[in-house]
């Protein structure tokens, strides 16, 4: 038992997080910035931060992840990081030639109190930023929020720095997809195009974090939202912000800055959340839902009904990020499963407001968020009353092994399997993939463990 040190008895902890169901802000800002075309994320702090974030993103995406660091020393900790950032900006444009440097802070530079906009204007004054190139920033202190907050802050930074309102509306919609995989972004764009709607998606990591082998090492992928697109987002008819934590802050800013109407949606995971996305898109852009999408939905409903008996009343434990957990739990309930334990380390009132409604038919369900809401707690709950399935990131494999529960990898980071970059979880087709995964996990376990006399070829 790898986690033999996890006791069954749940004690209230005050000062301690064990096996966190979250990580810190800067990595989210880094991931978001990778979704801008020709952008180099820059970590304003110690070398280690940048190295850790790159390693974790690399493990998750199996792609080279490029980002630079201010390489703080003791001197910078005492005198501030201005000199480091000025030198960094100059070196980066000379060496790596990005269109945009997206600076995020760390606990170190935040506590020292470095004023990034002031340092950036100094860089501009000193001619360190070539014409037509940009330095944007987001404040991402590690001791506030979580990786999701960092993502949200960088997306907000994109709006703050680039979105402009010319006064002439363009017949297009902004889509802020939230912290999802490149495959998900690709799928949301496909559905939107299928509806005949022109869209601007930001950030967009497809064609960056899922790039093909070309025999070249490329600093920047082909994809990403361009500066022109970000500017034009201020003239869109509406913004669909998917996920309250990761996307709504940027959507709100677009609304107040450029008067682009905000529609708040869940990340379209599962049937109902995808319905809401399609319906909203159809209403807002005044387009009919094409038959092809109706038929896609029909295929999802078909696989759901074909297999309902395997899902019914199965107990599921989940951990991860609020924006994913909310629609995922809704979907599980919709197909007859019981999400009984739901945990996120990410703070924010929205999760606490939504979960009771999502779980209203599961009276035994428990959910928790914040500092002591961690995977240690999930494990303790499971020890007290077991579950049939576990859904979450790679770190769940310890619990899965100890408690003999199948783990469905979902969320961030997934460091020990592939597929998430290529096959979406969102939309009707994504939901079909989720169904396949759920079903396989349940049936594989049954086949593996069935006694000989009960082993069956068919199911």
């Amino acid at each position, binding site marked *: *038992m*790898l*986690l*033999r*040190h*996890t*006791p069954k008895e749940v004690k209230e902890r005050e*000062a*301690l*997080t*064990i*096996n*966190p169901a*979250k*990580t*810190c*802000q800067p990595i989210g800002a880094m991931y978001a910035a990778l979704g801008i075309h*020709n952008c180099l994320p820059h970590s304003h702090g*110690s*070398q*280690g*931060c*940048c190295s*850790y*974030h*790159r390693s974790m993103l*690399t493990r998750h995406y*199996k*792609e080279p*992840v490029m980002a*630079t*660091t201010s*390489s*703080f*020393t*003791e001197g910078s*900790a005492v005198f501030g990081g201005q000199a480091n*950032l000025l*030198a960094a900006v100059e*070196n980066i444009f000379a*060496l790596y*030639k990005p269109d945009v440097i997206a600076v995020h802070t*760390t*606990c*170190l530079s935040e*506590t*020292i109190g470095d004023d990034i906009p002031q340092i950036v204007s100094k860089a501009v004054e000193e001619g360190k930023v070539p014409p037509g190139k940009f330095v944007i920033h987001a404040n991402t*202190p*590690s*001791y*506030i929020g979580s990786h999701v907050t960092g993502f949200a802050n960088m997306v907000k930074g994109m709006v703050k720095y680039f979105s402009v309102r010319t006064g002439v509306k363009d017949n297009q919609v902004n889509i802020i997809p939230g912290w999802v995989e490149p495959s998900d972004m690709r799928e949301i764009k496909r559905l939107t195009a299928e509806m005949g709607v022109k869209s601007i998606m930001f950030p967009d990591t497809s064609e960056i974090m899922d790039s093909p*082998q*070309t*025999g*070249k*090492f*490329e*600093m920047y992928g082909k994809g990403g939202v361009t500066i022109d697109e970000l500017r034009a987002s201020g003239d869109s008819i509406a913004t669909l912000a998917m996920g309250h934590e990761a996307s709504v802050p940027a959507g709100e800013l677009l609304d107040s800055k450029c008067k682009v109407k905000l529609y708040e949606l869940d990340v379209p995971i599962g049937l109902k959340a995808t319905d809401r996305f399609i319906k909203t898109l159809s209403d807002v852009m005044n387009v009919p839902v094409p038959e092809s999408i109706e038929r896609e939905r029909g295929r999802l409903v078909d696989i759901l009904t074909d297999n309902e008996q395997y899902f019914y009343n199965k107990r599921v434990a989940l951990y991860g990020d609020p924006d994913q957990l909310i629609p995922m739990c809704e979907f599980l309930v919709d197909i007859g499963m019981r999400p009984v334990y739901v945990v996120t*380390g990410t703070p924010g009132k929205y999760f606490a407001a939504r979960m009771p409604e999502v779980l209203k038919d599961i009276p035994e369900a428990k959910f928790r968020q914040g*500092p002591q809401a961690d995977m240690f707690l999930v494990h303790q709950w499971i020890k007290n009353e077991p579950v049939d399935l576990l859904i979450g990131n790679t770190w769940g494999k310890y619990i899965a092994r100890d408690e003999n529960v199948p783990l469905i990898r979902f969320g961030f980071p997934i460091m020990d399997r592939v597929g998430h970059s290529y096959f979406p979880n969102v939309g009707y087709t994504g939901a079909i993939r989720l169904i396949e995964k759920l079903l396989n996990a349940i049936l594989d376990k049954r086949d593996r463990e069935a006694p000989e006399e009960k082993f069956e070829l068919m199911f």
Partner: protein
Amino acid sequence: MPEVRILKERERQILRKGSGDQDMACEQKSLAGSVSQRACVFCGSRVVLYPIADALHLVHGPVGCAAYTWDIRGSLSSGAQLHRLSFSTDIQEKEVIFGGGEKLYAALSELIDAYHPKAAFVYSTCIVGLIGDDVNAICKRVAREKEIPVLPVHSEGFKGTKKDGYQAACDALARLVGTRSPEGISPFSINILGDFNLAGEIWMIRKYYEDMGIQVVATVTGDGRVDDICKSHGARLNVVQCSGSMTKLAEHMKQRYGIPYIKVSYFGVEDMADALYKVAEHFPENPKILTRAKDIVRQEVQALMPELKRYAQALQGKKAAIYVGGSFKAFSLVRALRLLGMKTVLAGSQTGNKSDYEQLKELCDEGTIIIDDANPLELSKFVKEKDVDLLIGGVKERPIAYKLGLGFCDHNHERKEALAGFTGMLNFAREVYSSVMSPVWRFAPRRGGEYRSSLSIGREDHGQRISEPFCCHS
């Protein structure tokens, strides 16, 4: 082809053997704004100490530092598994303003009550260095109250490089050494320093030494135990691998307890045999030890060589690039690759010092590029220039190699097979062979003219060489 720019400041960190006698500039901070592959002080301390499986490892700081290092190296333990959990004080804004001391005290006390560990390590992260929590005093207080060693590890990220983290880890370890009675330890005894048991290496090495009739007192830190470290000053010799991380502790034990140390490497046939002989030679009063060492080497080599030769035949003349954390590892790799018939055409490290690079230059063939603290652009430029078949590196280098269409071998955190010892050499050969000779490279644009053409008929670049492995949007 667009030319990769090497910043002036970096020029002296790269040299080619045979082109003048330029001195290597190294041990410098990475340039601000570089895509450095390096990590921080905390990282150095954490990787060195965390394999001690029956100790508590509490990271005092925001949650990230604990999350990113949660069992990342997969250090294996034959018993306790406490090191596989990730404990953090998860500092919030409130503590940044009012101090995190109370929270640290509460967390430590809570944890020690729950787990009764043999010792506790408390890692200070960047922010702790700034807000000024008195970690020493808190550790002292808890140690007194709970009656176990509670050791502060001063690993604030900005206070230097990974190497300084090794130093901080050695300082903490030094406080444990000598705290238990060394009674009953054999006169023919050693400590194994500097292997982290990422894939079970320590078990193999330990067995070789035990078969020679040597008692292994402590393994520091792979599969490590607090009690063993506490009495490790009873051993007669320290055997140090990974010189970067553990030499400081060996030095300390030499000065304080008069225990001599030798530097070894367990990687590759020659180095492994050497590691056994050197230890045997340290105990001339018991000639049986050397006899047994020779027996072991003979048996192992006899078993190994025929199979190794088969791989070497296939790999003859293939070219390798090495980019690793410590330069000591690079020496062994150059030798081991040579045994497989391969040539090292690029060798680099994150943390080498001047004499390391001198030694590396000595060891390598004419024309080999030697590089300190490389960034991905430089790596890909040289890899292309030298037309290599294999890159040996760590997690951040792997996808770069694959994008270029090169074979890859992880000689770092993510290795899955033990690469040390005689068996390890065979594992290494197998891994190198399976990557370099994999049929998939035929489809990779860089090498695979034959399989790419069918789809690109009619395209402009058809028939041209599309494999410029470096491209930077300008």
